[in-house]
């Protein structure tokens, strides 16, 4: 399989040279041919599913677009699904929401079945036509999902469900218990001179704006951006690192380069379990919460199989197994039935405390303009604008 891909690439390389001489017009035709092939295979699929063998999707392939190492590519996730359906699972990875959208825009549609876009993007992606509505009747396990999450407006467009809640988490105040005499209760510590050069702050425009709005007592979904900018600029001398990944944070924290900041609940829980002096709290102002939702990609090669995958992903069997895997980096499950089966230790590690949800401002969908404004704002702060 792999060698064939290389060979085809090599052929393509040579074709590229020839194409140059013959002008680059024919390219579009090639693309059409590829999509034609895909259409043919989907037709075949429909035929076979009607016959309904022992395993409904024997010999089919499901393509998943997700972050690397985010649950769906665990061995037991794939094995469990393949046992149930007989289909093979392939993964395509992305490294951020924008990249996910771009992958779908530039060839992913028609090739990929399911993706995990942030609800922030659901509305824009529906407009772009890169995702399509989910049929709730095909998802038996939807019953277990907390109503809190199913009530969120942003996963619906025109009353139709576009994102199926999978796992959730919060970005709370995380601190070094050896450096704090008592648990901090307010985001105000991030602005406190005492922690100059000791703060690790997440390099995410949305998180930064929401957190600051909460701290200022403003509406986290529609804040006064000038006030937010000013506050973030005030905080800058305290910030040692705008962290981009869990690894960034962990390295800086364990070497005591930072003492306090905003960090993901699940990752903080893992650090606690490893014996690091980590404390995690949802401050009195509340915190930003996030939700990962599965979506069916528009023009998916196999829509039924895509629904089967989502149903497996939100099932208690899978979510419990993932949560109990100490190296799985699982966040809290959005399925109540799964949460109830977890031991206290596991709940603490993945911070599966649904009572926190009401204190959270769940990130909602943003328009292109808002996204640009937030990104520009954080860029200004990071660049050191006064």
């Amino acid at each position, binding site marked *: 399989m792999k060698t064939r891909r*290389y060979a085809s*690439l090599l052929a*393509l390389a*040579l074709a590229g040279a020839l194409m140059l001489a013959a002008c680059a017009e024919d*390219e*579009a035709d090639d693309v059409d041919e590829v999509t034609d092939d895909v259409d043919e295979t989907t037709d075949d699929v429909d035929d076979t599913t009607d016959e309904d063998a022992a395993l409904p999707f024997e010999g089919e392939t499901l393509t998943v677009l997700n972050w690397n190492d985010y649950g769906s590519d665990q061995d037991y996730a794939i094995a469990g699904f393949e046992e149930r359906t007989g289909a093979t699972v392939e993964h395509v990875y992305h*490294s951020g929401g924008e990249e996910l959208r*771009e992958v779908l825009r530039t*060839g992913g549609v028609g090739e990929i079945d399911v993706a995990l876009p942030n609800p922030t993007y659901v509305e824009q992606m529906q407009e772009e036509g890169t995702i399509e509505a989910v049929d709730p009747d095909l998802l038996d396990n939807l019953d277990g999902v907390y109503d809190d999450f199913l009530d969120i407006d942003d996963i619906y467009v025109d009353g139709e469900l576009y994102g199926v809640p999978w796992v959730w988490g919060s970005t709370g105040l995380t601190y070094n218990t050896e450096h704090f005499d008592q648990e901090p209760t307010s985001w105000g510590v991030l602005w406190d001179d005492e922690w100059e050069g000791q703060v690790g702050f997440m390099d995410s425009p949305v998180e930064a704006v929401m957190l600051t709005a909460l701290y200022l007592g403003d509406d986290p979904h529609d804040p006064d951006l000038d006030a937010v900018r000013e506050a973030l600029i005030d905080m800058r001398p305290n910030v040692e690192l705008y962290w981009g990944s*869990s690894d960034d944070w962990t390295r800086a924290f364990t070497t005591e380069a930072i003492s306090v900041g905003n960090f993901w609940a699940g990752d903080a829980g893992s650090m606690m379990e490893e014996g690091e002096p980590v404390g995690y709290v949802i401050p009195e102002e509340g915190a930003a919460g996030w939700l990962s939702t599965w979506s069916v990609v528009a023009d998916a090669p196999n829509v039924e199989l895509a629904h089967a995958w989502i149903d497996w992903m939100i099932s208690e069997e899978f979510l419990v197994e993932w949560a109990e895997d100490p190296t799985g980096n699982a966040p809290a499950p959005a399925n109540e039935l799964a949460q109830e089966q977890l031991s206290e230790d596991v709940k603490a590690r993945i911070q599966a405390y649904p009572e926190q949800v009401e204190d959270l401002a769940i990130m909602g969908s943003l328009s292109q303009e808002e996204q640009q404004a937030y990104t520009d704002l954080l860029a200004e702060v990071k660049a050191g604008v006064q």
Partner: protein
Amino acid sequence: MATNTAAPPESTAAPASSGDVGGPRPDGHGRARRQRRGWLAWLWLVLGVVYTPVLVVMVLSFNASRYGTLPFAFTAEWYVALAGNDALISATGRSLVLSTSVAAVAAALGTALALWMVRFARSGATLFTALLTTAITIPWLILAVAMLLVANAVGVGRGLPLLFLGSLAVAMPYVVLVVVARLQGLGTELEQAARSLGARPLTAFRLVTLPLIGKSVLSGTLLAFIITFNNFPIHFFLAPFGFNTLPMEIYTFVLSGYDPDINALATVLISVAVGLGLVLLAVARRRGGDATATSRLQEMWG
């Protein structure tokens, strides 16, 4: 940092010794030797700085600790992990295939263009020289963004053809410059002599000129290979989804957390580079292909 502050006094001392090297004199022999040792020490210092990060990674690839912490405990487990890391291995494979194919096409097109520029072009050569220098001196980031936006505007978007052509456009000019530099030093007398002895133009080229420029074509090809292998901005902006090259894979690794098997990969790649470097050295033994390329650049900008 200390090495950098040491540089100015060293360089001002340069002319003092230069005369002694020009013609060793019996009276200044001891002093000359002492100075020579000083210069060699500087060279080793620079090499030390250049190799420090590389050696650290090599040592850590045999260290058991996941976070590179001491004490050092020997292990080969990261090499085992590397062998099972499909993402890194297939990314390396993609990078190799891409670089090889780009280098091959760049060599053919570049050599042809170089020959044409030196032998046939009159006014066109100046235009091409300007074109080539532009291609070489624009930051890759800007070139990549420009290519991507044009592809988006045309409606092609990211994809393998774009990745291939973009890499080719960046790499080919280097081949041309290296080969042109060699051709200009060559003259046409030998080929003409062959023609006057009855050889057809193509035969004369194949039997006389090609062997003479062979080395520079080879070093130009190697250069094109290295540049394509390395060209992260082009990969980053033009590669289609799911087609992560090795630099892209490392980028994702470093930004989103990594395992030490990347140390093992670095060790393997650097060892390969040493081997490749020695080949390059053998090829460019008499005439440094890269040095002639830069002196060519120098003429254009000087």
